[in-house]
């Protein structure tokens, strides 16, 4: 019995080790393949914004900017909606509506991103364009809304990302809310809390899990490629404007990799992959850290 336990432990451990080594191998291979570009541009790759395959001049700043800007915007739009959905389904929803709602949010997650992209081109982009045209000139003067009303651009990308992120965040947040002990709620009601106050207490109880859910959505938004490239306008520029066509890291790799025959060009594209990999790691690390500190504080208080 005991030897079987050891065997089981070793084999599952081996699987975990395989996973870790895959991550290391990806990082190593990305660095190796992009060595040419790393040596040539160094840190300038991160902070210059010329992307000129003809002249062999490569800087990733517009792509880094576009990726972070679109993902953060998407998160700002998606998080309140997703938490609202999660709270409604787990706390307030009549039993009969519950299953269809759960099914529908999970269905959103199953739609291929190319389909989102097509929907973006034919429905979202024209709608955004008419919104841009309808905006009064006084607002159009702000840097946030400058530029011609094209429809494609940062706003369309952020909106489509938000729609794609909502099911992930809301599904996880809903499961987390379900793990809040019934005693917690009963205690809140016993103290004379209203329904709103009881739910607020439940959300507070589940906050680490909810932050995890939001971060999962952020990770999804960072790496999303197809739908974004179809609506973002693919113009490498650093602009604060929601209406300006911009570009993301995942999109430029998908767009240009197949036709990149030149060695340096190829290395620069792989380095963009490396940058995306590093940024994803940093974001995951930060969210982990955030969850740990929050969890630590909670248990500390419980002990006190």
């Amino acid at each position, binding site marked *: 019995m005991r030897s079987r336990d050891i065997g089981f432990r070793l084999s599952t451990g081996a699987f975990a080790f395989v996973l870790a080594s895959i991550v290391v191998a990806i990082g190593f291979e990305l660095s190796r393949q992009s060595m040419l570009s790393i040596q040539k541009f160094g840190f300038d790759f991160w902070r210059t914004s*010329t*992307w*000129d*395959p*003809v*002249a062999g001049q490569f800087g990733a700043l517009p792509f880094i900017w576009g990726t972070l800007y679109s993902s953060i915007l998407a998160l700002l739009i998606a998080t309140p909606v997703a938490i609202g959905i999660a709270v409604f389904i787990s706390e307030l929803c009549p039993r009969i509506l519950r299953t269809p709602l759960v099914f529908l949010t*999970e269905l959103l*997650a*199953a739609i291929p991103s190319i389909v989102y992209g097509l929907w973006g*081109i*034919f429905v979202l*982009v*024209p709608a955004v*364009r008419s919104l841009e045209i309808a905006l009064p000139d006084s607002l159009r003067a702000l840097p946030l809304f400058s530029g*011609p009303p*094209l*429809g*494609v*651009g940062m706003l369309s990308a952020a909106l489509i990302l938000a729609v794609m992120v909502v099911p992930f965040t809301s*599904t*996880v947040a*809903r*499961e*987390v809310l379900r*793990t809040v002990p019934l005693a917690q709620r009963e205690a809140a009601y016993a103290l004379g809390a209203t329904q709103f106050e009881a739910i607020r207490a439940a959300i507070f109880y589940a906050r680490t*899990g909810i932050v*995890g*859910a939001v971060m999962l959505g952020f990770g999804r938004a960072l790496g999303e490629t197809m739908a974004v*490239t*179809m609506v973002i*306008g*693919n*113009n490498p520029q650093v602009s604060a404007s929601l209406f300006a*066509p911009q*570009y993301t890291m995942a*999109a430029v790799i*998908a*767009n*240009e*990799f*197949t*036709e*990149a*025959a030149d060695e340096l060009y*190829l290395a620069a594209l792989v380095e963009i992959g490396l940058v995306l990999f590093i940024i994803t790691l940093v974001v995951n690390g930060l969210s982990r850290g955030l969850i740990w500190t929050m969890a630590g504080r909670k248990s500390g208080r419980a002990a006190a």
Partner: protein
Amino acid sequence: MKFPFGSVQSMVQMPLRSLCATIVVVCVTACGGNSSEPASTSGAAGASASGNVQINGAGATFPYPIYSKWFSEYNKLYPEVQINYQSIGSGGGIRQLTNQTVFFGATDGPMTDEQMKSAPGPILHLPAVLGAVVPVYNVPGIEGELKFSGSLIADIYLGTVKTWDDPAIAKLNPGVKLPATDITVVHRSDGSGTTYIFVDFLSKTSPAFKKKVGVNTSVNWPAGVGGKGNEGVAGLVSQTPGSIGYVELIYALQNKISFGAVQNLAGEFVKASVDAVTKAAEGAAASMPSDFRVSITNAPGAGAYPISSFTWILLYEAPKDAASSRIMVDFMRWALTDGQKQATELGYAQLPSAVVQMEMAALDRVKVS
């Protein structure tokens, strides 16, 4: 943090299901292969008696429809010859050919001297068919056809011509009532042979464009928005009033998109058609270099459409696998004669006979034993 059990389960099930489907398909193809073997005794194309021969190639996406038709037609004629082609893009095709992971490559832009040098042996460029790129536009109030010159399109793409009622546009289109709408420039966002042909033409007709932008499958566009693929560019143009873009002739013909006429070297405004593209190749055939690495944009000759180009199949002159080489050379001879007749119905322009003759002579140089 717990994941919803239902969705995890369905995630696991899906790949399994597709895996089963793949296995079934593999079984069917394998069985099909076996059963056709006895029938292949007619041994045409000089195929070895050992049975089925598989040749793999990779490269440009633009000629994929005609190549896949050729390979399937050729397979009907000679069932023992199976030519596989992955349309992974010209750059990928050149890379795989250089690494010798495929037997032949295909590209929309000729290989550079540097790329030729890094290959393990001399590579032959063989023009397969011709394609063209056309300007498409969406100008409110204009139904008819607009006329463009190379330098005008270059100025529009450089962002120096900013509105549709600019005198430079009005000069070429007398009598057309042009609106004061801003021009929105649309270009390809993905690396593409279409972009290569287009910027090659603009660089030839505008020194400023050549200096600021240059020629490649993707370039650093000074203005505008990028759409992915022909469909992305066409979609953006049709939805954005005041926009101009460029797409492959085939795409415009198949989707019945109207496009503008472009001024050629002889000074005529030519609307693209398969005949006008073949004429461009005829005009260039006189000065064709022996390695076929030539750009035929802005070609001389009456009636020649100026934004035209060859698309090439790439072969090693002395490949290690002589048996495959013999079959590939036979296939190329067929593609250059019988195969050419299938080009027009798919929207590609046929090679002029002068070019075909030169290629036939070049094929004699390929080592087949």
